[in-house]
């Protein structure tokens, strides 16, 4: 149960090989899925193309529920990439985890707070960037005084709270899933009796984690678009 991370120090900065490896795997898988699905595209879609178009329309639906398409269309690519990246990352740790010599190598990259917080901070910074870019610095600043000026401290706290909840929700869900899977795997390998006892809950939990992985990816993209629309649209 006690896994160490394959940590390293390079140029005075810390890193975790496992995270970097899993991020690369996630990137590769998402890229391959999208790349293969978009070969020989036809006007009348078949097979994988249908799947990709469904994802596109799904993200389009998320965006449309927050912005008008004129404004939100530019976040379409961000949204699709984000939802596929996070969904694949969430699911990677489900079928197995690999640890070697007490060091955990194979897991969900989103089961690491550094990764999810990086994504969350990136999203929040993007919302501020687009807020300033599309409304101007003055309007952007005024938004902090709405609806009432004395709520300014709350507004500032909200920005940090948003960032924290966005990143930690994803991390917590996926990490908890992996911890429970790890416990069940530990039980299964302890004895024959334990194996029989663990196999059913493990399968159920894997199914449920698959579901959670999809839901969390959806929630992450949904909240991204909600925060973005708060910063970008003028009617809030």
């Amino acid at each position, binding site marked *: *149960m*006690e*896994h*160490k*991370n394959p*940590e*390293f120090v*390079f140029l005075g*900065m*810390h*890193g*975790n090989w496992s*995270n*970097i490896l899993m*991020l*690369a795997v*996630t*990137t590769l898988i*998402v*890229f391959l899925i*999208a*790349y293969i*699905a*978009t070969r020989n*595209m*036809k*006007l009348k879609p078949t097979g994988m*193309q249908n799947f*990709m*178009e469904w994802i*596109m329309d799904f993200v389009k639906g998320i965006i449309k529920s927050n912005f008008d398409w004129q404004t939100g269309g530019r976040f*379409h*690519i*961000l949204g*699709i*990439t*984000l939802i596929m*990246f996070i969904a694949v990352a969430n699911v990677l740790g489900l079928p197995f985890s690999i640890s070697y010599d007490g060091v955990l190598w194979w897991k969900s*990259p989103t089961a*690491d*707070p*550094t*990764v999810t917080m*990086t*994504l969350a901070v*990136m999203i929040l910074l993007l919302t501020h960037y687009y807020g300033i870019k599309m409304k101007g610095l003055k309007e952007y600043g005024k938004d902090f005084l709405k609806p009432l000026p004395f709520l300014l401290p709350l507004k500032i706290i909200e920005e940090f709270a948003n960032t924290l909840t966005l990143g930690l929700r994803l991390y917590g869900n996926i990490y908890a899933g992996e*911890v429970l899977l790890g416990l069940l795997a530990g039980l299964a390998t302890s004895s024959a009796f334990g194996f029989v006892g663990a196999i059913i809950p493990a399968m159920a939990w894997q199914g449920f984690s698959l579901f959670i992985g999809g839901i969390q990816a959806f929630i992450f993209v949904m909240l991204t678009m909600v925060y973005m629309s708060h910063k970008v649209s003028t009617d809030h």
Partner: protein
Amino acid sequence: MSFDYLILGAGGAGLNIWDIIATLFFFLLLMALLKKVAWGPLMGIMTQREELIASEIEAAENSRQESQRLLEEQRDLLKEARTEALAIVENAKKQGEASREDIITTARTEAARLKESAIREIDTEKERAIAAVRQEVVSLSVLAASKVLEKEVSEEDNRTLIEATIAKAGEVN
């Protein structure tokens, strides 16, 4: 069992800057690559499809209107043709009537004229015949007279002859 690993930032390594860099790097790389090779073309084809559908709908609408127009036109033409045909038949009937009248009148006139000319001819022939008979009578009379003179017949005979001749002439007349 230690639960230290459950604590955020456990391990005492501090912030994993390389993880942050790797996350950003991989995500942005993925987004850029996919934008180029997957999302761009896919969006392109979806837009293309939308345009195709829109244009097909428009074309269908147009062709529907066109066929409606043609149908209307054909209907009008048919109506016109029917009216025209009726008019032609009517006209032909009228013309036939007129020409029948004409022919009958002409025939009648011709017949009358022929009758007239026949009567006239008959009259002329009659006149001519009478003239000829008269001529004959005169010449016969002359002949008879000359015969009488030549023969020197008796008074009785003479008288009888003259009388007979005159009687003949009178009959003829």
